[in-house]
């Protein structure tokens, strides 16, 4: 009797536990790792030294570079799109925050990606959110609810060669940038894949509007002058990202 009971109970445990699991089909999906290379005109960004020059001829450095990439969307060869509604904080000081993974991307051919630099309005009017949007990530303002989409802090040399602080905190709904990149067809087949995208910081400061750090060097997205700067940066960001490689 005891043995029967033991067997029955064991059987129940075995029967009930697997019922929790999802069905394990053959992998129709792939894990896609998306990584961003932060560069200035082809040179990977090294935090600290004044080692770069923008289109306005201002020598500058990067002490801190953080930005939000969200609503990453893959474009299939047939033009259909899959939005992963994700939020990722890219941080140039932390190799674990150079990108993000999409764990279940349907296998097939893809010809492009779309994403937002910043946070969509629906998620930009409360900071009572977790994960990448946790206010602890220091990408919020204390006086205005919403996320700082892009942060560049460092130093630059002014016209007389003096080193001056550079603080750019870019955000508000009007600042949201839609990025769309296309590339030669890539194929996801169930194996882990890695996509490299490039971010060229200098492109944020030129084309169509040259940002002169002697004029714009402290922007917090809260004054009339900031509004003009936001508009210029918004347009500049359009070509700041590019597709680099897929493997």
């Amino acid at each position, binding site marked *: 009797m005891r043995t029967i*009971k033991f067997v029955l109970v064991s059987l*129940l*445990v075995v029967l009930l536990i697997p019922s929790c699991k999802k069905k394990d089909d053959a992998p129709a999906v792939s894990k896609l790792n998306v990584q961003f290379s932060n560069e200035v005109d082809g040179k990977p960004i090294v935090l600290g030294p004044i080692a770069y020059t923008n289109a306005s001829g201002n020598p500058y450095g990067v002490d801190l570079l953080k930005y939000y990439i969200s609503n990453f969307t893959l474009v299939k060869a047939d033009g259909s799109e899959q939005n992963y509604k994700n939020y990722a904080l890219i941080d140039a000081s932390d190799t674990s925050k150079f990108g993000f993974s999409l764990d279940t991307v349907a296998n097939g051919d893809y010809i492009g990606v779309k994403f937002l630099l910043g946070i969509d309005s629906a998620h930009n009017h409360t*900071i*009572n959110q977790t994960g990448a949007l946790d206010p*602890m990530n*220091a990408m919020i303002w204390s006086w205005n609810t919403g996320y700082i989409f892009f942060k560049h802090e460092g130093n630059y040399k002014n016209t007389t060669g003096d080193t001056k602080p550079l603080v750019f905190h870019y955000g508000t709904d*009007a600042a949201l940038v839609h990025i769309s990149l296309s590339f030669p067809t890539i194929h996801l087949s169930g194996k882990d894949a890695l996509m490299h995208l490039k971010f060229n910081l200098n492109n944020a400061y030129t084309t169509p509007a040259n940002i002169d750090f002697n004029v714009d060097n402290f922007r917090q997205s809260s*004054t009339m002058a900031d509004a003009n700067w936001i508009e210029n940066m918004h347009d500049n960001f359009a070509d700041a990202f590019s597709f680099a490689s897929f493997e």
Partner: protein
Amino acid sequence: MKKGLSFLLAFTCVLVISLNACKTGDNAPTLTPYTLEIPSGLPAMGIPTDNPLTVEGIALGRKLFYDPILSGNNTQSCGGCHRQAFAFTDSNTQFSTGIDHLPGVRNAMSLVNLGYQKKFFWDGGAADLESQVVGPIQNPIEMHEDLGDMVKKLNAHAEYPALFKQVFGGSTITSVMVMDAIAQFERTLISGNSKYDQYLRGSATLTAEELRGMDVYQQESKGDCTHCHSLGSTFSDFAFRNNGVDSIYSDAGRYRITLLGTDSGKFKTPSLRNIAVTAPYMHDGRFKTLGECVDHYNTGFHYAKYLDPNIANKIKGRMSAQDKSDLIAFLNTLTDYEFLQNPKFGKP
């Protein structure tokens, strides 16, 4: 029979254990739901579904509200500048001083009936009560604390980890939990038992002077306070208005948030509940007395660009000295002494 029972018991145990294995995350904490007591005259208060009130959550929020651990050098709490006896304003202080001894630029606001308000701070910069919480904590001229450091301190504290776990589950305290807990406590700060409220319920009588003042408050040709500070209930529509305190703005108010020119010099209409104890007045605390405030609306206002039309079309000097003193007598009936002394709202 006994064996059958023990089998049934074993079966049930296995079932329960197996089913629990399917759940993710921590065990749901046992919490006591809290229902707000809304005084008659005030509307029902909407509570966000993702931050329901619980006895434990409110108690935690209250503890945090009064704990200087939330500041950069552990010297200043929320309650340090929002003092209950003054309807959670900073007494007679025009600009409160932060932990680095730097003065602010706006007057500490009263924390009363917050659950009826949609936006917080004088310029509405905080889009919800939870989001508001971290503003003063982070502000370099206020509590000047980094949220990461704040959370580290709380996680290393002798009492907080267990308290947070009880309320929110999880093994680590996050900044969002701090925001939720404090917002829960703040939603309980309800004031609706002033002499005026008691008069409405028939349990108090207003003097002749106070009744005349209530008339001045409402008459369009006199005080006309009601257009913005609706009589009764919350005593404000909480809209953003330019009330003509300046014609050139040193503080652009709501403009800083919306970057819309038309919002220049606009600030949130504050509630007039407990107004007698919340001096000084206006966003920058420029007026020391209610008399100065009434004088401003009677004669002192500037014809600023974007001045609120309810003020712009008023004749200067329309209130007599008698009207003004009657009006102030009425405003004094809005003090809710029970609220100012309720031990539930004080330092635990």
